[in-house]
């Protein structure tokens, strides 16, 4: 009996100590992290692109980017000195590889992010997870989310980003530049009929892009239109449907165009694919994989694609591009 | 008997006030039927059957396969509700008892016990103490004594620390019986306990049952189809065929040649032994 009592007491004591410790610890306020860094900071509340209101310190000195497109945007804006951390996949420009890595875009290490004591963390709805944002909020770290769906929205998103981070001038400048590029392109393609294309994300199974994606919009700006009319973002298509629609061109996104040439040759030999006119006549375009990122580089990729699809609209620019077949250009 | 054994015998107070030759077990006109599916008419597996048994008696429910023996046993144990009639144990209807109380008064020894995870023999026997005390219980010193004693009574003390899946069929049977004894019941029910035993073990078991019934004042009801074991060891026989109870009485009265031949569909002869017990000889050759 006595043994039992002592054991009971010991066990209860351990549990009690534990519970007290955890209760005390859990009630420690998360604001400790903030106050330790800059005690006298001003804040402003802004609304991000998903409608959340975000409280950002002024001025912003330390930024963590959780998406390669946002990292690129920061560099394009010339604001990369604010960047203290980015993801493993932030590879453009090469200088971004040297920044402190916090993990993947969908599974970053929250500890690493918190360690960097950022003023704001940049996320995008198309890549990052809601759970990550919720965790950041719980830790009292501001998370600003972008969510561009069209080319114009990408442009204004970058501009807004610059303004949020305290350098509206840079944002305006970049915005003007991109707008000029866009208008120029638009003029060239004014009287040209858009090409019907199939944007191939993956060939087996055949996955293309939905009409609400920014890539679909980018195609429109490049004088093309995706034959796929789906409301899903990455719809899986049947080859038969493609044969029925008979797109004029296939579009691939890759950084290695000769690899694509080989892939297309391989595709031509696959059953069913040779029924596509575009495959039979090797009518395909390769655009840099910048088209996959909603960042300023997208605009150059759009122009590049337009050159491939409508060489005649660029004819007065260079002689070589007039005679070269679209498939062989880079 | 040592003091320990005495403490492990059934509480005589349960019978208090009752004359020792009043029946402890009274099976009154029980019957059972079930319908395989709602559209069909119910099939009677057991028709109205009655018998009584006293403390210290060994009753055998005898009959060929599908004669309703197991059904009768389940009804007596209180697990199955009879369609008609009732079973009284010291005046209490067995089916109406709380499972706990029932476990304190009635012990059932089933056939093969399928153990999912191996346990030791003494752990197994301790399970017999479960009906006593609260649902979540920790065994007391008394429980240990009673379990030890139960194993001793069946001659299986040496098996106490062995694993249940490593002992022979006969040894397992003894341990299962010990568990039933640990329940300190008034009524001990066994369903075909001799099925997987060799002849020596069968005789052993019946001897033990008779001894236990006498020493501990159990009422023992055994379901079996072993004619000669029943003839030798039972005080009372309930003869069933296809759900009908044909005869109830002492073996000498029930073992009539014509009756047995009809029930078991085989030619046989019945002899009276020197101890007043009948012995049956099966005759090979053409069947009646």
């Amino acid at each position, binding site marked *: 009996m006595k*043994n*039992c009592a002592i*054991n*009971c007491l010991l*066990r209860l004591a*351990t*549990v009690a100590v534990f519970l007290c*410790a955890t209760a*005390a*610890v*859990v009630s*420690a306020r998360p604001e*400790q*992290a903030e106050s330790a*860094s800059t005690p006298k900071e001003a804040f402003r509340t802004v609304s991000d692109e998903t409608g959340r209101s975000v409280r950002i310190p002024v001025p912003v000195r330390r930024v963590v980017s959780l998406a390669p497109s946002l990292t690129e945007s920061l560099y394009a804006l010339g604001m990369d000195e604010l960047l203290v951390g980015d993801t*493993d996949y932030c590879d453009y420009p090469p200088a971004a590889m040297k920044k402190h*890595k*916090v*993990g*993947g875009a*969908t*599974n*970053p*290490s*929250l*500890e690493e992010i*918190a*360690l960097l004591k950022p003023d704001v963390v940049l996320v995008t709805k*198309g890549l990052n*997870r809601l*759970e990550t944002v919720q*965790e950041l909020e719980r*830790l009292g770290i501001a998370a600003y989310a972008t969510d561009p769906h069209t080319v114009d929205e990408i442009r204004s998103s970058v501009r807004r980003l610059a303004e949020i981070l305290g350098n509206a001038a840079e944002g305006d400048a970049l915005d003007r530049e991109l707008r000029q590029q866009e208008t120029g392109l638009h003029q060239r393609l004014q009287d040209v009929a858009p090409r019907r294309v199939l944007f191939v994300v993956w060939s087996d199974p055949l996955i293309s892009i939905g009409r609400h994606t920014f890539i679909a919009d980018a195609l429109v700006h490049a004088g093309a239109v995706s034959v796929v009319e789906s409301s*899903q973002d990455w719809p899986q298509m049947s080859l038969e449907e493609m044969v029925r629609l008979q797109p004029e061109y296939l579009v691939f996104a890759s950084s290695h165009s000769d690899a694509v040439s080989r892939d297309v040759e391989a595709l031509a030999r696959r059953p069913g694919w040779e029924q596509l006119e575009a495959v039979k006549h090797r009518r395909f375009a390769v655009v840099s994989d910048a088209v996959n990122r909603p960042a300023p580089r997208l605009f150059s990729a759009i122009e590049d694609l337009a050159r491939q699809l409508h060489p005649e609209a660029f004819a007065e620019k260079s002689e070589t591009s007039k005679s070269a077949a679209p498939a062989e250009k880079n | 008997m040592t003091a320990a054994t005495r403490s492990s015998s059934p509480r005589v107070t349960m019978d208090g006030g009752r004359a020792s030759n009043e029946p402890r077990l009274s099976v009154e006109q029980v019957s059972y039927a079930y319908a395989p599916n709602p559209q069909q008419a119910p099939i009677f597996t057991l028709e109205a059957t009655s018998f009584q048994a006293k403390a210290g008696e060994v009753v055998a429910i005898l009959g060929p396969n599908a004669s309703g023996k197991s059904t009768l046993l389940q009804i007596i144990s209180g*697990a199955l509700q009879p369609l008609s009639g009732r079973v009284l144990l010291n005046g209490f209807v067995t089916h109406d008892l709380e*499972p706990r*109380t*029932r*476990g*304190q008064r009635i012990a*059932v020894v*089933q056939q093969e016990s*399928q*153990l*999912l*995870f191996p*346990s030791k023999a*003494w752990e*197994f026997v*301790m399970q*017999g103490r*479960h*009906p006593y005390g609260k*649902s*979540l219980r*920790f*065994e007391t010193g008394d*429980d*240990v004594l009673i*379990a030890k004693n139960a194993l001793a009574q069946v001659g299986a003390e040496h098996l106490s620390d062995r694993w249940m899946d490593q002992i022979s069929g006969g040894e397992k049977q003894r341990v299962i019986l010990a568990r039933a004894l640990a329940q300190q019941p008034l009524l001990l029910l066994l369903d075909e306990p001799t099925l997987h035993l060799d002849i020596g073990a069968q005789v052993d078991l019946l001897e033990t049952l008779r001894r236990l019934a006498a020493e501990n004042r159990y009422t023992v009801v055994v379901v079996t189809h072993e004619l000669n074991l029943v003839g030798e060891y039972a005080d009372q026989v309930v003869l069933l065929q296809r759900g009908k109870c044909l005869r109830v009485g002492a073996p000498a009265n029930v073992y009539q040649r014509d009756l047995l031949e009809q029930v078991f569909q085989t030619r046989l002869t019945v002899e009276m032994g020197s101890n007043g017990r009948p012995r049956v000889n099966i005759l090979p050759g053409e069947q009646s």
Partner: protein
Amino acid sequence: MRPLTVSRLLTQCLILGAILFCVMVLALKFGAVHVSLYGLGRDLLRVLMGKSTEISSDYSLILNLRLPRIFLSVLVGASLSIAGTSFQALLRNPLADPYVLGVSSGAAVGAILALLLEPRLALSPEIASVFTPLGGFLGAAVAITAVYFLGRREGRVDSSTLLLGGVIIASLLSAFISLLLSVMPSSNVRGMSYWLMGELTAVPSRPLAWVLRVGFFVAAAAIYTTASDLNLLLSGEKEAMHLGVDVRRVRLVVYIAASALTGLAVAMSGSIGYIGLLVPHVMRMIFGSDHRILLPASAFGGAIALVIADTLARTIAAPSELPVGAITAIAGAPLFIYLLRRRLT
């Protein structure tokens, strides 16, 4: 002949508790921030003495990030193990795990539906944070009820039909999940695939954490009251009934409580596999199959296993985080094969 006594039970629990404590302290040590246990202890003392403002920001970080996560691991690990032990006894099947009755599939469907609905409803932040776990728990509850009614035969719950019902519901729901995932907007799909693999990064908010704790203790206590009965059930249902066990009541209590534990665990952290299946077996090898000690031992064992797995998930591929379900699978599968072979010899 040494029966289990209360004092022996408590001693063993104390030892296991001490091991869990050490594992938790070690888990606190590993991660992106360098932690010295002395510093941590000093800060803990400061907090206890009410001087929370004096903690260094690094340790505050640890305490806000790692400690809640470790506690969640303890809770989920214990829940899954208790549920696994219970289902193995209830279904009389050593291969049963908490998900065998379709609970996790139900929770997954509920969570996916919640994720789909969330953008369309204007939810306040407090509700939004519990919306997905709530959906998960409701989905689990629906699955449990469906399986229960499928598993009834002649008005009673029968283990083999229950198991069959569970397998049917689980496969039906899995197909449904695949369907949902293929039509969901891609941003949510990403989140769902992590959830399905099981992860412990989503630390619950205060009120939800309390619900979890209370739910855990109530369900675990309810199951523990049937510990002796479960021992007898393993010998067979008829035998148990003749020994005074109210089989019907025990079945119901264990079914509801174990499903609740699983539902809570899955709603919070997705389907983390192998914990509920293997921890009971390992603990059985050490402590025997007496549920009065097996249930608490499994709880501690599961907590220890999951804290270790989660620590590995955080540190192996740093700075990325692996889903903890992948770690438990990689470690669990070989262990499972080893255990199977032991049983067969």
